[in-house]
């Protein structure tokens, strides 16, 4: 699979070759692909979402259901260097001080503050002295962004259904100080995307999630939230707005 520019840019000043790496929140396996392409000795792709685990296995290979992308130059052993772990990030099934590089690529925005705090502690636990941490995420959207309305509906449905927001956009300066508070020394910040292209596929994926959360609401506004999400998605279609940043940290030692 192709390594997204965001991941390639976030990793291009990090030493990856020969390291045991962890992608926290594997999603579609984008950072995992970048870590393997850059010569990681092993990548643990950790996610609590079975579909994401399956997607990562299928895209990178090694999961037994690989059907493509594994026959080109340099791809042959990528499946062998990948371990997909289906696990809660607050209880990662790895020993203390066992990984040399951690990526949280687009992770923090799907963690509300309490979870973020627990996850950060767990990441610090599994990180070896001297380990790198790369945190890629989105600044809060500007007030006039149309897509804010869709995210607001997604958050409203999620709050009502599950008692927590679906998305929290933390400013770069916030996460910088937050991880520093967990013992990570800040090394650099760079802009990955500006503006951020929220394409039709992103917009419809978020509308789907909002509708899904709305369906879980016990009673009341479910239908209207789902309908609002659909309406907003078709009105917005796509929008390029906001900033995606990359923060790099290092653990002392």
């Amino acid at each position: 699979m192709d390594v997204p520019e965001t991941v390639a840019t976030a990793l291009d000043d990090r030493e990856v070759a020969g390291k045991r790496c962890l992608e926290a929140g594997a999603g579609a396996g984008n950072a995992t692909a970048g870590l393997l392409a850059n010569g990681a000795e092993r990548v643990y792709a950790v996610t609590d979402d079975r579909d994401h685990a399956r997607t990562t296995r299928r895209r990178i290979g090694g999961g037994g259901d690989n059907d493509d992308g594994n026959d080109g130059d340099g791809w042959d052993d990528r499946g062998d260097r990948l371990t997909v772990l289906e696990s809660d990030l607050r209880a990662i099934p790895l020993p203390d001080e066992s990984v040399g590089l951690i990526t949280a690529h687009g992770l923090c925005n799907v963690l509300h503050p309490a979870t973020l705090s627990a996850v950060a502690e767990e990441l610090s636990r599994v990180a070896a002295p001297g380990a790198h941490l790369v945190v890629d995420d989105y600044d809060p959207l500007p007030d006039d962004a149309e897509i804010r309305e869709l995210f607001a509906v997604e958050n409203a449905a999620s709050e009502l259904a599950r008692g927590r927001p679906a998305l929290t956009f933390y400013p770069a300066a916030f996460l910088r100080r937050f991880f520093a508070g967990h013992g990570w020394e800040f090394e650099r910040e760079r802009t990955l995307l500006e503006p951020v292209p929220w394409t039709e596929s992103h917009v419809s994926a978020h509308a789907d999630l909002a509708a899904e959360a709305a369906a879980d609401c016990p009673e009341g506004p479910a239908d209207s939230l789902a309908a609002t999400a659909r309406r907003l998605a078709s009105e917005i279609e796509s929008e390029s707005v906001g900033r995606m940043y990359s923060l790099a940290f290092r653990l002392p030692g």
Partner: protein
Amino acid sequence: METRPLGNTGHDSTVMTFGAIALNWLEQEGANQLVEHVLDYGVNHFDVAPTYGDAELKLGPKLRQHREEIFLGCKTQERTYEGAWRKLDRSLNRLGVETIDLYQVHGLEYDEELDAITGDDGALAAFREAKQQGLIDHIGLTSHGDPDLILDALDRIDDLESVMFPLNPVVAGKDGDEYDYEAVLARAEAEDVGTLGIKAFAGGSWPPTDELPEADRPFANWYRPVTAPDEIRERFDFAAAQGLTSVVSAGDPKLVTMILEAAADYDGMDETAQRSLIERVRHDDSPVPEQLHH
């Protein structure tokens, strides 16, 4: 309009090259007007080929009128000495000019073709004779093919002065060697060979002809082009920002004015905006469903 040195040819090409295939779709009067329009923007590099329908013939009148203002690129798909001579003579006749500034091997696709053109009886032998006789000034090569093949051509053809190849954000977002035209750009730059970008405005393939018959396509391009002014502008900016000498305009005359405007206004593109564009087209094109992130 900004100009950039075309390798070591001594010519400074405008950052937009006019793809004269656009003339093929116009009557002569409209073709004349389009050439004047392009020249009004200061474009000084034109590219044509004998395979572009009547484009050579329709370019002829205005080309002859403005010969000194136009650096003329032409090309041939012939791979043999005799074939190349025949096509060069034909192009000179059809264009009605004494010389072609840049004569290019057109559409190199296979290793065997590279062997053929570099052989004793190959097209390049004809190119070199023609150069000695003053019929052409510089030798170039164009390819939509494998970047490795273009790199081989750069290795094997010492007097190659320009290469023309695809470069756009769709291609730039793909990792395989078969998409690595950035490597061609880097090598050409290192060897002071001029670089001309094609397919900058490609949005994707046309739907299969049983869904959309060729006659129902709204544009004359071989691919489905981007068509909104903002999209045209960012595609131009992206291609020009990669460091190409010049970006060749799209083949449909309806798009040319938008591309001229973009080229005239070009003043660079931030790297973050370049990545945003790569990301956007990657997701538009992605087979992976339900991605929330970038």
